[in-house]
């Protein structure tokens, strides 16, 4: 495991562990409700109703980081779910099916009061329905119409002109579904939904994302990146799962302060930085050391992933008179923004230029096929912008079939080629 350069990173990990322990205690001892949801759900509604949420993808990353994914996925396959099915979104289900809390991270997931997910790819409704039946909890889906109007530079519209960026009928529909979800949350909690409280939370989310934007700008402008990519991810995602809360805002501010101090002190994550790398796709959760493996020999540093960069562009919403509609605009198009043309390719190229990226590694997750789409447009766009691309065929959570040393060698050859051509260019 690579060293943690930021104190914030250590604090984020400790807080998450304590938060989950408290959640388990509240569920088991006080019968408090909590929810298991997809990462692209409007977590803000749950937070407003004081229902803690565990994100499916966060838990999958935890399981993968504990090196438990092969065991759990083998178990899933043994039950008749074939090996070609999506692994990232089903690993948490697999951990439930395994029924071994002694081995599970932090004691495992207790029974939630409900499951909820947006029906993006066709397998999500199935994974969540199976999971909900397994634990005997209700599953509340939010259906997901497809987008048909996609102005390419969406990030220039998303903060102030979100009402026109996302089609009205899609926003209306999402708000209508929010009302049904809220009614269910009111039923579960016995509390009444307060739009003013949601608005306050959304303002907090804006504040949090503004801190992240400051960090992003520092990474763009500092001579060498002050914070490694995987530490960006740890700090950002710990706050995103609790976004808008006092702790999340304070943590984002502390993260910003610590990065700023490093920039002011001239501290670089890798003083020998020569090549700035971009990681396109979800994290390689079963082998996060991969992200620091090329610093010493090649001076190659991962400086960008979507996790920090998407915060400001994807989450900030100004004009919160109708907080439900603003939240709907944050929710309806995650998939298009991150995985589909033209939004994903246009945004990633813009980010690559702003971050002075020398080369991109693009995850091609064949074990999680729905996440693999959009990649060829992204790769073509990066190459057209003069940024070399190396596709990495791997699964984000499943270490079966992953050969870390072979992949490091392959990346090394790619980086050697980059260094040679850079030297030729200089000559």
């Amino acid at each position, binding site marked *: 495991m690579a060293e943690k350069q930021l104190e914030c990173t250590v604090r984020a990990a400790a807080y998450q562990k304590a938060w989950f322990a408290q959640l388990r205690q509240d569920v088991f001892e006080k019968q408090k409700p909590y929810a298991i949801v997809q990462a692209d759900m409007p977590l803000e509604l749950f937070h407003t109703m004081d229902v803690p949420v565990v994100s499916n993808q966060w838990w999958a990353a935890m399981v993968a980081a504990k090196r438990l994914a092969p065991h759990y996925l083998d178990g899933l396959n043994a*039950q*008749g*779910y*074939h090996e*070609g*099915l*999506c692994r990232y979104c089903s690993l948490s289900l697999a951990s439930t099916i395994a029924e071994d809390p002694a081995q599970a991270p932090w004691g495992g997931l207790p029974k939630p009061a409900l499951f909820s997910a947006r*029906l*993006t*790819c*066709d*397998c999500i*409704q*199935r*994974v969540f*329905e*199976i999971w909900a039946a397994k634990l005997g909890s209700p599953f509340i*889906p939010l*259906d997901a*119409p*497809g*987008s*048909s109007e*996609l102005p*390419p530079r969406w990030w220039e519209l998303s903060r102030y002109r979100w009402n026109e960026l996302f089609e009205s*009928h899609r926003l209306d*529909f999402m708000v*209508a*579904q929010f009302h*049904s979800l809220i009614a269910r949350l009111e039923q579960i909690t016995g509390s009444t939904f307060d739009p003013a409280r949601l608005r306050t939370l959304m303002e907090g989310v804006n504040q949090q994302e503004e801190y992240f934007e400051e960090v992003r700008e520092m990474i763009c402008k500092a001579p060498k990146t002050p914070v490694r990519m995987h530490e960006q991810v740890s700090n950002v995602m710990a706050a995103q799962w609790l976004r808008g809360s006092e702790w999340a805002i304070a943590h984002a501010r502390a993260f910003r302060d610590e990065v700023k101090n490093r920039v002011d002190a001239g501290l670089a994550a890798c003083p020998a930085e020569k090549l700035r790398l971009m990681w396109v796709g979800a994290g390689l959760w079963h082998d996060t050391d991969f992200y620091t493996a090329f610093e010493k020999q090649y001076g190659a540093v991962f400086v960008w992933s979507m996790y920090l960069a998407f915060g400001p562009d994807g989450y900030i919403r100004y004009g919160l008179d109708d907080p439900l509609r603003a939240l709907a605009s944050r929710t309806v198009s995650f998939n*298009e923004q991150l995985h*589909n*043309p*033209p939004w994903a*390719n246009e945004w990633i190229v813009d980010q690559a230029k702003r971050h002075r990226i020398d080369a991109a590694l693009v995850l*091609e997750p*064949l074990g999680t*096929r*729905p996440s*693999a*789409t*959009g*990649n*060829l*447009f992204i790769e*073509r766009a990066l190459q057209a912008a003069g940024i070399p691309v190396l596709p990495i065929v791997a699964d984000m959570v499943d270490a079966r079939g992953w050969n870390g040393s072979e992949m490091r060698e392959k990346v090394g050859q790619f980086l050697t080629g980059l260094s040679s051509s850079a030297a030729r260019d200089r000559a």
Partner: protein
Amino acid sequence: MSLTRIYTERAIHSRNGGPVVGVTSNTVPWDLLRAAGLRPVLLSPRRKETPLADRYMEDAFSGRIKAIFDFLISSEGERLAAVVIPRTSEQEHKLYLYLREVARQGLAQTPKPILYNLLHARSPEAEAYGLDRTHDLKQQLEQLTGRPIQPDALREAIAEGNAARQAIRALLQQRAGIAPRLRGSEALALIGAWYFMDRSEYALLAQQALREIETRTALEGPRILIKGSPLDSPALPAAIESHGAVVVAEDDWWGSRSAGRDIDTTMDPLRAIFEKYYFDAPSPRVFPSEISDAWFYSKASEVDGVIFYLPQEDDVLGWDYPRLRDYLGDRAIPYLMVRSDSSDEIGAFIERLRHG
């Protein structure tokens, strides 16, 4: 021309009868397109190679969607005035986005893509949204043709479509009961042809075929239901029937479930069309599973065995398999799961069924 030949050739002719519009699934309302004066035709080209699509579309897409994309961005796509793509699977929405993107970047010319945002979860919100989107599709078709769709045209198109549905149901009767007369490999072609032709012509040809089939003697052999990835080729039923079984049903939109019920002629025609495609059309996104499984549960009780077909490219229906397998196991209904139509296990399974 015979229905089998029409099904096999899947030709797209720019003949008289209005501009040709491609559709990508069973959930595009044929009747509405027809009422607009268009000639809808299902796109399901058979391509061994998809060199154009391979430039932009990842291997995560199914072979069928890749073939459609390859067709649409090739010069062949120029025969179409538009292509209507439903939100009936995630891959189809992405196909829509990819078409727009190659056009936006000037990488290829494509027919005008139209997204029909029909949802399939059963909820009051999704139902209201789907009806609104059906009105929206009507407007887009009117813009495409430059003329309004009249209520009489809707009623005529519904009548034409219903006649074809009745013809299909009559063919399906020849597969029902303990003495079927129609093999699955033949039925798939006879039924599937309706996606590639005018439906008034289809009804006539199907009735002719029916008269001949009715004179046949009953087929012998274990009666099989196929469940899994939609069968746009008769290869799997042919493989099963080569071992002496009879495929009597398929739980997908190409075979037994292609027609479904008639469109209701007693209500507002546009609402009736929407309800047909929302409530009575198979889709991988129908939710909850108790609704999507209902047909399978009913049909499974009428057959001697079930063969699940989950090809290597499947990443959706495999989630349903253990649940459906357990359902059959609880009722002592024999089943087999295969990942290819050339599986060696098929013969042994049929043999076991023969010997009880």
